[in-house]
């Protein structure tokens, strides 16, 4: 006999449960954590380097780096002053998930840190679907990507707690219309805190690092 069983369960609930475990673990160690997401080349690793150069003497920072292959980014974070940098090679997966972050947390003594920066895989689609358990999700956009990105990747833009717009030093050379970009952002994510920055000139980076530092509980 055939019978229908109603279920109604979120398909990614297993990941969500693990994300909650990660959060509890990070929280109980008194660490503030961010998940940095962006397309490839937006400047995630450069932002981390600049952040470390401003915060490494004030805060103890750990960096977890997700990449499909190589440890180039983790090496850059270590060179820039991260007190721990852990590379996760996803082996082809397009995003980090809560299981992978859990594996990285197992390699860290969280009590030794104030701030945990997770650098997700460069991708504007998949990372938005997988919660990691970090306190804040941050999207790093960059002006050469174009001003239409909020409209094309709404899932990413509406899910983040803060937005960094990198490479603003290039604005005079691009057809990037900030009004149009911000209108898209405002439609998807009203009032999201936004930091226009340039890693090359340093403009705007203090506001970003102050925001991070204010979120760290001392």
């Amino acid at each position: 006999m055939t019978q229908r069983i109603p279920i109604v369960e979120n398909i990614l609930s297993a990941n969500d449960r693990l994300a909650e475990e990660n959060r509890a673990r990070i929280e109980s160690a008194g660490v503030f954590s961010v998940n940095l997401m962006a397309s490839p080349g937006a400047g995630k690793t450069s932002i981390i380097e600049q952040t470390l150069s401003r915060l490494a003497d004030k805060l103890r920072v750990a960096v977890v780096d997700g990449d499909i292959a190589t440890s180039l980014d983790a090496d850059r974070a270590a060179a820039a002053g991260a007190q721990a940098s852990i590379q996760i090679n996803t082996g082809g997966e397009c995003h980090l998930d809560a299981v992978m972050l859990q594996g990285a947390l197992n390699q860290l003594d969280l009590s030794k840190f104030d701030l945990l920066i997770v650098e997700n895989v460069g991708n504007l689609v998949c990372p938005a679907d997988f919660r990691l358990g970090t306190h804040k999700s941050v999207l790093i956009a960059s002006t050469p990507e174009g001003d239409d990105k909020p409209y094309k990747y709404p899932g990413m833009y509406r899910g983040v707690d803060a937005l960094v717009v990198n490479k603003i030093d290039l604005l005079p050379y691009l057809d990037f219309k900030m009004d149009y970009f911000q209108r898209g952002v405002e439609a998807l994510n009203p009032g999201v805190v936004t930091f226009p920055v340039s890693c090359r000139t340093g403009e705007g980076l203090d506001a970003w690092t102050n925001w991070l530092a204010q979120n760290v509980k001392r």
Partner: protein
Amino acid sequence: MHELAVTQSVLDIVLRHAKDAGAKRVTDIHIAIGELSTNVDDSVQFYWDIIAKGTIAEGAKLHFRRVPAELQCMACFEKYHPDDGELVCPKCGSVGAKIIAGEEFSLEAIDVEDQENS
């Protein structure tokens, strides 16, 4: 792409519920996907045919119910469907909307046979 991870999650949930119900075989799986959800559908059946092999859900047919997006304007509270990704309220022209529906990605039901050869 992450369809494999998604399909594995579906299988885990299906097998858990089928076991709880004492089912011998799972024939159909009903999934709701919101219009705004980025997860794809067709390829999930492809992965399913591979990863469900050897389980009681082998050969099950996946059915996808598409849930249309619905937004509510935060200025005038008009409810509307975002056509062509346009996020402007058709009534008052404001941007900024709350998503009421369209982000679903859930398993709604499974059809099971509770006896062999039934």
